[in-house]
């Protein structure tokens, strides 16, 4: 019983999941009949065949597949896997880029909340009115419109025509900034690590240094991609909130709350608390999706995050980088799922670990 055992059990299931994901990625990557090493060194005709031979040997292309996989896997786990194109450790590149992806995901989340919560409540209160139909349309639009089409339309409107945002670079604070929590590692390793890592997210770093102009610039730069992410899933989340709110408002416990003469505010609290249960679940999964699935958004909006890294890696057949990126995506995804499950149990006393 209890949270500890629940966590242990869940984390135990993570390991096969993540190994499975890496193995599948490996299979797909290596099934492609191409000569990756040629792509890595630049594809020019004049490359020294000896160099190619050396790289092939280094990455065990001349060994059987299982040796190759074991090599990649152990290098990945020990953090020694090197990106052959940049010559950098994959883990270092990912560590640099992940905070930018988190920043994008946070902006996406902000817009998702701003769009979905009021719309969901309005659609429930004004059921079967134009507002409700508009939300239904937005949900349909978000799930059927190819994301890149929406992204380019937004860019056309706000960058090309109106020129009120820009699309290159990420505003960063002038110096690395840390919060006091970075002193914690000795005491609570995970919290301390997270604390110092939060400072790597450019906007939070800027806040910690008090560089408010950078924060302002970040908003100017990131609102459009954030809005784009929020628009795509806003209608869907609003619909879920609308439906669960209508269920709650029509329930006997809300009627009983009214029968007890509770204030409007208290009655709403009864309804909303229940209605939020499914919404928290989808919001969490959306956040995971933003973190792991921003490949297209980062590419179109020119954001140098993880998704962009993986996109570049794919176009250069850079398998070590692809596998490293997939590894991080998989970890993000299972972690977000775990957090959603814990949140769920926190909100709903009926859920047992």
């Amino acid at each position, binding site marked *: 019983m209890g949270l500890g055992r629940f966590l242990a059990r869940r984390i135990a299931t993570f390991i096969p999941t993540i190994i499975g994901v890496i193995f599948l990625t490996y299979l797909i990557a290596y099934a492609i009949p191409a000569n990756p090493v040629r792509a890595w060194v630049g594809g020019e005709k004049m490359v020294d065949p000896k160099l190619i031979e050396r790289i092939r040997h280094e990455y065990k292309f001349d060994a059987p597949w299982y040796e190759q996989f074991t090599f990649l896997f152990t290098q990945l786990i020990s953090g020694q896997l090197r990106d052959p194109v940049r010559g950098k450790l994959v883990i270092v590149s990912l560590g640099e880029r992940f905070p930018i992806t988190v920043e994008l995901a946070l902006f996406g989340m902000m817009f998702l909340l701003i769009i979905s919560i009021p719309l969901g409540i309005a659609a429930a209160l004004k059921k079967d009115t134009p507002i409700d139909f508009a939300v239904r349309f937005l949900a349909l639009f978000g799930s059927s419109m190819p994301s890149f089409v929406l992204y380019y339309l937004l860019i056309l409107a706000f960058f090309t025509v109106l020129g009120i945002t820009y699309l290159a670079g990420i505003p960063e604070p002038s110096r690395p900034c840390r919060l006091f929590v970075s002193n914690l590692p000795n005491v609570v390793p995970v919290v301390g690590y997270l604390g110092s890592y939060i400072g790597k997210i450019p906007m939070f770093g800027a806040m910690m240094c008090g560089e408010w102009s950078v924060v302002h610039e970040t908003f100017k730069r990131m609102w459009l991609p954030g809005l784009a992410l929020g628009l795509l899933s806003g209608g869907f989340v609003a619909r879920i909130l609308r439906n669960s709110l209508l269920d709650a408002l029509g329930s*006997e416990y809300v*009627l*009983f709350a009214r*029968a*007890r003469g*509770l204030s409007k505010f208290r009655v709403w609290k009864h309804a909303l608390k229940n209605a939020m249960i499914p919404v928290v679940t989808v919001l969490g999964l959306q956040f995971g999706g933003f973190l792991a699935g921003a490949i297209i958004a980062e590419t179109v909006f020119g954001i140098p995050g993880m998704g962009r890294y993986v996109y570049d890696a794919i176009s250069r057949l850079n398998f070590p980088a692809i596998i490293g990126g997939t590894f991080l995506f998989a970890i993000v995804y299972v972690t977000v799922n775990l957090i959603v499950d814990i949140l769920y149990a926190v909100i709903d*006393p009926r859920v047992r670990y």
Partner: protein
Amino acid sequence: MSKKYLELEPEKILSVKDLEVKFYTYAGVVHAVSGVSFDVYENEVVALVGETGCGKTVTTRAITRLIYPPGHIARGQAIFRRRNGTVIDLLSISEKELRDIRGNEIAYIFQDPTSALNPLFTAGEHIVETIVAHSSTNRKLARNEAIRLLKQVLIPHPSLRVKTYPHELSGGMRQRVVIATAIANKPRLLIADEPTTNLDVTVQAQILDLLSELKKQYSMSIILITHNLGIVAEIADRVYVMYAGKIVESANVFELFEKPMHPYTRGLLHALPDPVRRIEKLEYIPGTVPSLINPPPGCRFHPRCKFAKRVCREEPPMVEVEPGHYVACWLYAKR
């Protein structure tokens, strides 16, 4: 809000007049309650009996306007004497005044305690918020009061139980929590909607004893809805018999069991071989309950009544056949 002069005999606490409630559904307009009138005296237990779907719950909820779309209170008055002595019509006062009365002067025990309690709120929280909504006590005092109330409704370990969630309680315990919230502000009128259905017999008896006890202690009036004529015989003072959205007969409990007049009431009592033995469903009368979308014209019982005559297709008047014994049936009325 119109200030009409409302009158209510001093011995009455509530007088419902000509209540009509409709539901606008896709299938059509459901005439759930059609011209129901009844009185509740100070300090009495009034039973409302009738088959499932005849409009008992809707009638009692309409008293404090707990009818929401697609439902609509089309007509009627519910004259009520407040604690401070003023007489008001619950169906025309402001929403704010009504909120003052709900849960405070008129309280409900809902039919199904499992769905009436919010699964995300503790037992104690339900009681505390009901107290706080109607007084200026702080939450800490209200919490102590909640523990006292849980003890009063015979919940073991009340100071632990305040913190438990509904799903951790048994059906009987949940019903006690609902009762505790209902009596939290010592209401003048308690509306108990089938407070013992779905409970096993010993728990039923405990809950009924508890209600009688509370009634004495707080000198409340109770409207008791039930299928169970055994319970009626046991604790009710007067009975209203409802059929398909209308009241067909009313009398004091002895009179009704002694001399039932309406063919439907007779059917009910006949269906009960021994009034002491409790049965849950009254399904022995031949025929089925009519649709309330297209109710039969006139006496709504005529398709099932073996005494039905041509005149029964017209509305029978409510006549007083004996002092305090009313029947709506053409067998007892002159044209």
